[in-house]
């Protein structure tokens, strides 16, 4: 109460024209961003929704057909496989990234006794792939996956494993893309986990040791529960990324063989810019939007919780 009373006279000193000036400056400062948002985000979302209710090939003006595109989806067998691929890819890529990221973070955290420059080298080596464009990463792995000349099959051969047709068989195509995703993204998750681990109060571990807890017990009893907000958060971030993975698929397999490694995003791209079936592609994009929106809302809720947690 006293605070408001004190603040009152100060405010009255500001003249009306000063307030106006501040507001006008504010609007001018946000103008470029708001304009960009309206023209290139908000407008396009509305337009995509409208296109999703039309038949549109860019040559003729869009022709309104109601919810026909959405009805067509139900009978689209390719969409069924594409959605299944997207789910399989996202779930496996995300869970593997998290499991390996966590293991690496715990291992690195145990070795905090190492000289700090060695720790830094580790951090850099794991972090670097995230900065390199997926297209280049995929081009390197494309050669690594080669059936006869690839590095991977060569070393598998030393272990007496028959050469695998990584990119050419429907059994392994999606697996190959998952491997590349995990390799590229695991370092980033590891760093987030490492930050989380270092925030855990050491007293908990000391107390547990006094009670005679082993390292596994400490991991499942202390580390994992205290890290859970970070874990969930990393999971959502990775799911959003994995859901939109495009570059590695178009480079490594082009979605093939057949539709074996085609994801929803790649399918949308091909419908829109190869077959110019913009209406149907828009309807697919709206579905993607819905899924991403749900994931993001969960993330926002979780990160609020996360901030509160600390």
């Amino acid at each position: 109460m006293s605070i408001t009373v004190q603040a009152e006279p100060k405010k009255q000193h500001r003249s009306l024209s000063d307030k106006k000036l501040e507001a006008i400056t504010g609007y001018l400062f946000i103008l470029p961003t708001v304009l960009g948002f309206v023209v290139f985000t908000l407008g396009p979302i509305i337009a995509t929704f409208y296109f999703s209710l039309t038949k549109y090939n860019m040559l003729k003006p869009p022709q309104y057909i109601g919810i026909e595109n959405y009805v067509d989806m139900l009978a689209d067998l390719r969409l069924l496989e594409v959605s299944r691929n997207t789910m399989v890819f996202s779930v496996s890529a995300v869970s593997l990234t998290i499991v390996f990221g966590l293991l690496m973070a715990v291992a690195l955290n145990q070795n905090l006794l190492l000289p700090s420059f060695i720790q830094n080298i580790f951090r850099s080596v794991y972090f670097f792939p995230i900065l390199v464009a997926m297209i280049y990463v995929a081009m390197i792995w494309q050669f690594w996956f080669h059936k006869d000349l690839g590095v991977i099959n060569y070393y598998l051969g030393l272990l007496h494993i028959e050469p695998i047709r990584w990119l050419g068989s429907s059994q392994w195509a999606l697996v190959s893309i998952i491997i590349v995703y995990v390799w590229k993204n695991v370092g980033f998750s590891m760093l987030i986990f490492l930050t989380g681990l270092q925030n855990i109060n050491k007293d908990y571990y000391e107390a547990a040791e006094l009670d005679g807890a082993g390292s596994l017990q400490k991991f499942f009893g202390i580390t994992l529960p205290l890290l859970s907000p970070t874990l969930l958060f990393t999971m959502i971030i990775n799911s959003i990324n994995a859901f939109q993975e495009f570059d590695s698929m178009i480079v490594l397999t082009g979605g093939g063989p057949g539709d074996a490694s085609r994801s929803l995003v790649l399918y949308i791209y091909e419908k829109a810019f190869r077959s110019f079936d913009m209406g149907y592609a828009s309807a697919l994009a709206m579905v993607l939007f819905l899924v991403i929106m749900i994931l993001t809302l969960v993330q926002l809720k979780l990160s609020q919780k996360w901030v509160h947690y600390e």
Partner: protein
Amino acid sequence: MFAPFVWMFSTSLQPGSEAFKVPPKWIPTEWMFSNYHTVIFEKEVPFILFGWNSLKVAGLVTIGQLITCSLAGFAFARLRFPGKNWIFVVLLSGLMVPVQVMIIPIYVIMRTLGLIDTHWALILPWITNIFGVFLLRQFFLTLPKDLIDAARIDGANYWQIYAKIALPLAKPSLAALAVVTFTNTWNNYFLPLVFISSKENMTLPLGIRSLFNVYGGGNIALVMAGVSVAVLPVLIIFLLAQKRIIEGMLRGSIKG
């Protein structure tokens, strides 16, 4: 973990006839630095032009975002105007829209403006970035209010406060945004794939992909030399600003 990059680099230095043989060779027997010369000055694939195009697009997008995001971030953090909060919330909601949802209408807009197959299609829609606005707003919120009030009493106008006081203090946040935006734009493959069709307008990712189409079957050493050259700037930036990049990316990830 680093092996694919080691392989890339060593392959890029091998003679075309020896690269990509079984068993894989990790150290070249003959150091063919001429591969780099061949790739860079090859007529079929104008490598230097691709690099310049990439630099131009990534540079302009980064500069654009630094300006628009810092202006808006400052306004949202430190200026009072009606409707501020709900405008900010509406803008934030834009963070959850994947590019595939907007790409068709943006394509239509660019076609109407006659900007398909120009760099403007890669620049204009990304000249502002809600995440950047958020990042800088968070920073400007940490500036003490008194600083601004004092400057106001001394007769500085809001533009001067932004340009002379707030902006210089925001350098670390601006650098973080610049690095993230630059790398993302430099690395982007999807947008040029949609918008760019003629060779002279291609950016590096698209150009290097075409390098693969030219040499992929024959000389893999040349393809890897091209990839190495494209990865090099990222590596250099990373080594120079490693700490800041990692911090910036971690901070970025926390909010989205």
